[in-house]
């Protein structure tokens, strides 16, 4: 970027630590109580990428998230790593949003922030695993996109050069800015947040703004569940209809029984 500093916006999400989720054996529903909320792992790499670009080329990093009020924790954490300003989109009408409604909400917020030269997101969130938000925001804002970015090489003038994963291996591409990147955990080693910055974020010294639907000019019918095009109509525990035949006893006999089944089904 010549003359003008780069405006970077990083999208982050607060997610339940899905590796800790258990099912209630009686009801079959998710036990959400006591499950830690964390900054989505891929998003941590997105924050790191934004800060490194700022350090190298100059500019500002704005951290943007949508979620309940407590999601301010992940915005603070990203500011603790080195972000300059934060925006949390929080409103009851945002609840139950699919990726269509979420990308609409985030897209409007990016416009309100004043667009940007580069939007960086984690490739996917561990609670939904859809990897859809990045490309959908890019399409809404008519930005160039590169997904699964594992290396950011350079910013040259009004272009960025990155490597992304593709079926064959890697693809090195040059994208004109403004552009949106989704990044993988191979990209970098994220730094730890500085305690002093975290304290600044918590005490309100670092600027975090909270915006609701009205701030974005978003009608309730365009947001959350009501503004979604897809709906979850049922959830259930994974199960299979197989009822296996078990062989126990000494290894030789058990294996002989199994081998007989394999042979009769022509599997070996």
């Amino acid at each position: 970027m010549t003359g003008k500093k780069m405006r970077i916006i990083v999208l982050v999400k607060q997610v339940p630590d899905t590796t800790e989720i258990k099912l209630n054996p009686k009801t079959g529903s998710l036990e959400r109580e006591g499950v830690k909320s964390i900054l989505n792992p891929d998003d941590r790499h997105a924050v790191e990428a934004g800060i490194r670009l700022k350090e190298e080329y100059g500019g500002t990093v704005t951290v943007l998230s949508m979620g309940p009020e407590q999601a301010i924790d992940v915005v603070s954490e990203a500011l603790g790593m080195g972000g300059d300003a934060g925006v949390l989109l929080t409103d009851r009408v945002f609840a139950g949003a699919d990726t269509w409604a979420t990308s609409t909400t985030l897209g409007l917020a990016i416009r309100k922030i004043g667009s940007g030269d580069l939007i960086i997101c984690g490739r996917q969130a561990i609670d939904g695993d859809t990897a859809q938000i990045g490309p959908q925001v890019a399409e809404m804002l008519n930005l160039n996109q590169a997904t699964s970015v594992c290396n950011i090489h350079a910013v040259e003038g009004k272009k960025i050069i990155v490597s992304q994963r593709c079926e064959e291996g890697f693809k090195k591409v040059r994208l004109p800015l403004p552009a949106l990147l989704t990044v993988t955990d191979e990209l970098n080693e994220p730094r730890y947040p500085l305690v002093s910055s975290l304290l600044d974020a918590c005490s309100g010294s670092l600027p975090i703004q909270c915006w609701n639907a009205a701030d974005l000019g978003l009608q309730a019918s365009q947001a959350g569940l009501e503004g979604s095009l897809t709906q979850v109509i049922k959830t259930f525990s994974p199960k299979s209809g197989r009822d296996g035949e078990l062989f126990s006893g000494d290894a030789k006999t058990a294996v002989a029984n199994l081998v007989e089944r394999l042979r009769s089904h022509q599997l070996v």
Partner: protein
Amino acid sequence: MSTWIDSEKCNGCGRCLKTCPYGAIEMGSDDKARILDNCVSCGACLESCRQGAILTDVQPRSIPDFSRHRDVWVIAEQQHGELHPVTLELLGKARELADILGQTVAALLPGDDSASLAETLVNHGADRVFLLRHPDLRDYRTVVYTDAIEPVVREHRPAILLIGATLQGRDLAPRLARRLQTGLTADCTELSIDEDEKILLQTRPAFGGNVMATIACRYSRPQMATVRPGVMAPVCLPGRDGVVVEIPVAVSPDRLQAEDVIETIRAAGKKISLQAARAIVAGGRGMGSAAAFAELEKLAAVIGAEVAGTRIAVENDWIAAERQVGQTGQTVRPELYIACGISGAVQHRAGMMNSRYIIAVNKDPNAPIFKIADWGIVGDVHQVIPELTAQLQ
């Protein structure tokens, strides 16, 4: 907009707790159901209550008339004139869905000179093949492909549009769905047609594979879904007749600039395709060491199988990461899957539960893997595996 419980009528049966996709209902200390703050008034619980105790002021959304939207489409993926296997897998599923609906199957193939692939697409279930031919469609580019596909979909109005959840498909599908202003469900493991509404029911793992969620796209068309490679089965239907339609494509130079490919670097080493394997021998935590995996190699050599592992096995360096099966690894569906020392956490099951035959060897008779196995041996893998190898030699 809210939903609440009439506690006079609630008998505390708890059915609504199970149906809530958001975990927003709990049983109060008075044995009456209670709606929590995270309720989004989706209405999924209303029908589950036999007492009529769940009340809501939410007006049902009206569903637009989509009767002009017909047929099941698959976006075919090719590279250097070769089809990605997921394309044929999707066609198999598309054929099944279209037959239920009494509609036809079409494949949309963007590429440079890919007319020779049309016959393969027809032989795997396509009634029509739309060839989008242009020299600049030879290699995948997000914006150029989206621009080329959008007008064809708008003109022909398919009811359902399926895309492989490859790296390319996961880049293209959300961009295209947003352009077409329609809903998209990622990484479906099951697709079916609702008998009453005739809509596509899209089932996928959620919350890291801890639950399965069924998702509907009632308010827009096409109903778009991506499916990971290896989840669906291809069906070969030789001798079928199909129509091949060439569609002219214009690519403007400034759109090409949106993604200027400098170079493509092939990943080093042999690419391992567990998806193509007829048989897989997989090991998990119970194997305990890299040495124990050597026993799996011997068994695999005897029966002509590939070796795979769980996330734990990969994290312990007992096996290479590209051989990981499960939610964060590959999805496989071989004829035969032998799970050794694998307890069967949902994350792993998500990647192998569609295998034709599953065999489990585990010392714990209560391991969840036995619930999805056709045959199982309760015993020590370190004894059972060498014995199995010996008896099969």
